[in-house]
């Protein structure tokens, strides 16, 4: 039960992290006319951050403690 509580808090924190990553002003930092490996920076940022968030969620959800 203790680990479950801890994971709940982790998940809420991840949701808050996501809200931060995908909103003004962080989004504005990447909203520039430049490219990263040929892909516009904003698109690259969103997909990479999104993937990262999912990876963290997987880590927390599959954790056994």
């Amino acid at each position: 039960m203790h680990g479950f509580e801890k994971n709940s808090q982790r998940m809420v924190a991840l949701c808050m992290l996501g809200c931060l990553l995908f909103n003004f002003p962080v989004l504005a930092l990447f909203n520039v006319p430049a490219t990263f490996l040929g892909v516009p920076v904003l698109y690259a940022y969103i997909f990479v951050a999104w993937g990262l968030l999912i990876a963290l969620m997987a880590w927390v959800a599959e954790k056994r403690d």
Partner: protein
Amino acid sequence: MLQGWVVVATSFAYLGLLFAIAYYADRRADAGRSLIANPYIYALSLAVYATAWTFYGSVGRAASDGVGFLPIYIGPTLMIALWWVVMRKVLRISKEHRITSLADFIASRYGKSALLGGVVTVIAVIGIVPYISLQLKAVSNSFTIVLQYPAIVMPAKVGAVPVLQDTALWVALSLALFTILFGTRHLYSAEHHEGMVAAIAFESLVKLLAFVAVGVFVTYGVYGGFGDVFARAAADPELRPLLTPLEGVAGGYASWAWLTILSMLAIMFLPRQFQVTVIENTDEKHLNKAIWLFPLYMLVINLFVLPIAFGGRLHFPGGVVDADTFVLTIPMAERQELLALLVFVGGLSAATGMVIVETIALSTMVCNDLLMPVLLRMKSLRLNERTDLTGLLLGIRRGAILLILLLGYLYFRLAGEAYALVSIGLISFAAVAQFAPAALGGIFWKGGTRRGALAGLAAGFAIWSYTLLLPALARSGWLPIGLLEQGPFGIALLRPLQLFGLSGLDQITHAMLWSMIANLGAYVLVSLTGSQSAEEHRQASLFVDVFRRSPEAGGARFWRGTASATDLHNLLARFLGIAAADEAFRDYAQRKGLLWPAQALDADAEFVHHVETQLAGAIGASSARIMVASAVKEEALTLEEVRKIVDEASQVVMYSHRLEQKSRELEAASAELRAANEQLKELDRLKDDFLSTVTHELRTPLTSIRAFSEILARDPKVDLEQRRRFLGIIAKETERLTRLINQVLDLAKVESGRADWNESAVDLREVIDDTVGAMSQVFKERNVRLELQLPAKVPPVRGDLDRIIQVMLNLLSNAVKFCDPQHGRINVTLAEQGGALRVEVCDNGPGVAPGDEKIIFDKFVQAGDTLTDKPQGSGLGLYICRHIVEHHGGRIWVQRAPAGGACFAFTLPIERGAAETKTKRRRHDEESADR
């Protein structure tokens, strides 16, 4: 190969395949080997979220807005992180109350209110109709476009067709037929639609595969990879603004944020999402996988949206081809017939998946929460007298499915052409978002009342209709357009798109803002100013505290009355059929350890509750309440009584929490006691060891003293030389005895912490000089060469001079004892090192055996094998040394000398004022505490 008959045949073959899968899954379920009781199928079934909107509409949105389509998928990802807390609770509540739909859930929370269930159903049906029309539009458009192959003609150009020749109508009718055959073959009660879920999971795979296939084809087949597509888009003056799109879109970041919030709510409150996530869930644990697999699915299906959107706009310049169709038209323009067919099937799967689950969910709501409560109340229908109502229930559901699809078609005819796919879908999202305050408030806030929920829903829905539905109808020409431009009756403040003069926001943001303010405001305000009925109070406590009570202590405690088991059986049989009623009775009897029907069941509160929950699983909580109330004689509980029961329950919970805590404390205390006991036992053992070793050590010299003195006493003829030798031995042994006794006394003092420490500044150099001087005679006798490496001056250490000398003497005499007997050599070094002085005493003897470096400082441990070698000391010296050095805040250890012998070293911290003594004291305190 894209002739009309091929496309139609493929479509029906695909639907047939779905049927086969569903049939197989149902058979497996009947055999008890469920196909869907598996987290991967569960995660895939959640992907019913990706509809024709995702499949065709995202590209359309991206082609005009750039990243504007993404919040619809990022929002759910954020919400799903919260599912760990929120959805788990919803799942548990729904399992315990056998919830059959979203309307059932909300109605059940607010005192099983039939009115509330009806309102939720109406809002859901009206709200979802545009969404269903979106699917019809997408399928019929894609069908029309494929049929024009190899030409690429937009459906709008084909011209208006009479209703009976309209593809969309036929699509709607076939889907209705399919869903009816599919979802209402028998009355499921709250059992899972196994076949449907398996088919939906399969559809999720098909649409993902089709979309990724066309994405890879456009990105790498038509263009030269991501970089190439974006580079060409950047070179096009029309597309360049889309590369940093958040500046260009009206409302920019605000619109982005509101879309995110909107889709966060949609993923929970779309009726079909509630159906697959909650109603069809077989195990709460499946959530753990779905929490990351489903967001991953959304990420993958969106990877190629932007390349397809830009590719399409580069491919079809001038806007002649609708961006919503790029997924299909690019493969067609490239003459990829097979891929185009795959895309068509993918789009079909996305649309059918949505339509099937959505209409099943809505038809359950219409039946259980809208029609049944009304029909059951109508005495003139005499439904109470009919023995089997299962046919009626199924009939209602089938009718509802057909009706909902026809409503979708009607909306498509009325308003479908004026909007892009995504805009149609967002209208539905905003409608279901209205459920959020009542539903989320209901599971976390006990104070929410039925009236509050009703007021909130009504206010939110009214604003939604006014700001979203009305403009949609006006734009399609069904209402005067002046309504939008001048406002009703020319009142500019009431213009639906700039309500109260709020302008500068896009339509969805504007509508969400006002409807959420109205909804949440009314819900909270009315809840806070009103009061709850007994039933509401009870349900509120059952929902909010679902994790804090045991399931059986749930609803049964709140019922009082008389009932007969036969009446209850008849009641169940009428709605579920005789077989299911028997099954429910047998289950309950088994739980009670009885054998039904041989043994009669006592129709007590718990049993009535069981029957009501079973019934709720088939016809919803509010209808079940009505039916049970009609079948048994019950006494209504007053609000006071319910409060008392709830309070008692929470007091019991509190007591048990306190008990748990007490028992945890007790456990901790007993563990401590056990540890203390272990320590005492260990000390006892050590004391025994100590006594036996000391007595042994004392006896050895005593024996020799006694033996030699007896010889001297009995035999007067012993010559002088001999006498002197004997007396010498006696003197030496006595000396050894004295030393041993001194050490034991010392040890007792040091260990008990009662030793007197006369601290002063000590010059270690002097100490070494003095001790070496005192032992010079011994060195000479043993022919040992001594080498000193001492710096000219060292800072003083603070300590007890006598004790430090004792340590030095001990180490030196040890070194003398063990160094090489012929060419003994001892090195003594003193050096300053990191705030401490280090003294090393190295010999060239055999050294300390590896592994003994630690224990050699323990009590009565002697170097070498004590069994074969003659012990050369008491085994207490080093132990006392360690105590003394550690008392001074230093460290003592042994290492291998470069020459091969043992090298004993110790450090003592350099005196640095008061702070230093403090540390020493603390160390000492800790040591005494350890003991």
